[in-house]
């Protein structure tokens, strides 16, 4: 009973900084001249261009997640087969760049793609910024540790004797991997996907800095809606921005729910969320 006391600060924190802002988002979305109304939300929902932006954002976030998984899984697998002390050291190296601010890292990539690499290759009139691929690459760079760590956690928790047993029963390496290791690492895959997909779908600094402002993702769209509302005359109308934020919230909610479903059969394992 007594231990519950320690949770109170966190509950207060959550109420203040998660629940209250959430109430505000809904208030702003449905508030039309002081009364509750669906009219503005409906107007935003029926704007097809906004849905197109959402779709592009989902595509880019999904692409980022796939690349993170394809690149991160082998790394996590190799790490899990190393001696614990070496693996710990290497995973620290993975996280060292994360100690630096996200925006600074993105600026560094901007310089690399705009100047460093093109100059090295002697290109005078071409740069690497401004393409979807550049945006995705920097997103992958920024989020890959969040894929590798849960994967590594769940892979290293797999009981070695299961792999040995698989070999004793006549399975070759490939079969062991697909029949034993891969299914047992599903919790790690699931939390890795969640931890990459959700921040990727909401990212807005990377498309702005690396995409040369050419790609408006959903995060940029929300930012723009709030800025435009603030910049217009009279009292600001945050309805559009709030509605977009709610849509994004629903997307995140759905993807988390789907992921948890996958995760159900694998209660144990390295779930970071």
């Amino acid at each position: 009973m007594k231990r519950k006391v320690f949770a109170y600060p966190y509950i207060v924190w959550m109420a203040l900084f998660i629940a209250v802002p959430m109430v505000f988002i809904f208030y702003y979305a449905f508030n039309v001249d002081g009364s509750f109304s669906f009219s503005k939300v409906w107007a935003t929902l029926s704007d097809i261009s906004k849905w197109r932006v959402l779709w592009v954002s989902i595509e880019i976030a999904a692409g980022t997640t796939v690349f993170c998984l394809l690149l991160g899984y082998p790394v996590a697998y190799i790490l899990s087969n190393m001696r614990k002390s070496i693996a710990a050291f290497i995973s620290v190296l993975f996280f060292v760049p994360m100690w630096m601010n996200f925006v600074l890292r993105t600026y560094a990539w901007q310089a690399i793609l705009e100047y460093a690499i093109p100059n090295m290759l002697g290109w005078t009139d071409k740069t690497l910024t401004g393409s979807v691929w550049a945006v995705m690459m920097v997103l992958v760079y920024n989020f890959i540790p969040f894929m590798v760590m849960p994967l590594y956690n769940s892979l290293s928790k797999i009981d070695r004797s299961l792999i040995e047993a698989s070999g004793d029963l006549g399975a070759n390496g490939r079969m062991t991997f697909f029949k034993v290791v891969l299914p047992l690492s599903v919790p790690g895959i699931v939390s890795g996907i969640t931890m990459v997909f959700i921040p990727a779908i909401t990212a807005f600094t990377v498309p702005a800095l690396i995409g040369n402002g050419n790609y408006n993702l959903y995060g940029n769209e929300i930012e723009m809606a709030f800025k435009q509302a603030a910049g217009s005359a009279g009292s600001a109308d945050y309805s559009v921005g709030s509605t977009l934020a709610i849509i994004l919230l629903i997307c995140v909610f759905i993807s988390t729910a789907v992921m948890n479903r996958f995760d159900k059969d694998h209660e144990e394992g390295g779930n970071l969320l």
Partner: protein
Amino acid sequence: MKKFFCFALALMMLFAFAACSNSSDGPAANGDNEVFADGDQYDEIGGELNILNWGEYIDPELITLFEEETGVKVNYVEMTSNEEMLIKLKSSDCVYDMCFPSEYIIEQLIASDLLLPLDMDKIPNAKNIMQDKLEITNSFDPGNKYSLPYMWGTVGILYNTTMVEEPVTSWGILWDEKYAGQIWMYDSVRDSIGITLKYLGYDLNTRSEAEIAEARDLLIAQKPLRKGFGTDNMRASMINGKAAMAVIYSGDAFVCMDENEDLAYAVPEEGSNVWFDNVVIPKSAKNIEAAHAFINFLNDGAIAARNTEYIYYSTPNQAAMDRLDEYFTGSETYNPPKEVLDRCTVFHDLGDFVSVYNEAWNAIKMK
């Protein structure tokens, strides 16, 4: 860059000198050092002064100097957009004693009754401000009652003369297929749509939906030619020769031209935007005394000259212009001739109509 270091060194020496004389003779002796143009003296005011300004938009040494002269503790906060400032000024717990919004924002702030009329008796140095600039600012702040110009400039095309051979005289060059992928546009609704309207021969404050739709379609068609929409990142890109041209503010252009001599700046003949960032005091200001003293301080000829030499944006201060060397005053980018100014217009607040611009902008950004 070398120039900047020389200047910084000179500043530091000057500053050290001022500091020395301060410590030996006390504040009363300030009048006879060379810091101020007219041997001004500042009374001890004390308290705190909360300033909200754009990034890299003041010589930080000047803040220290002001603090030493007046005993005021300056809290200096930076922002990145007019909209951000508007949010801060509109909120009920605004703590700022002064800030530096652009013209169309000042119109809104005046309309919302958020600004304090300036007490010109406390700003004797306002006499240094050029009359022709005050005539322009008069159009958005009638009688120059609430604001005084701080920095100003034009919007134009910065281009690399090794990549662009013909003279740049028209905005049309931004739609020239020769330069596909080499063209930077400015990531701002009013600026990008504004210059397109000018190219089409319309007013950049137009309230005609048809004209805006025409500009929108032109900008959508420009998509394959465009390198992107940039802001501060365009400077490095242009200095390093990574793009042929950029729509940019004259002050930024002047900075770039200082770093790369292949760059040139032109204000196209169709006309453009002339902008002003003015200093204002919000109604909610606490230290009104210090805010006025700081505005007066900034308008001292010697101080304004130091400030503009640091920022590279054009000063509206005649006493400062008299102190600047040929490098500044002789540059058509820094000091555009009258015929350039005559074809430029200021942005005005559009009220609710701005939503038409915003919708067009959303369509452009979504390609």
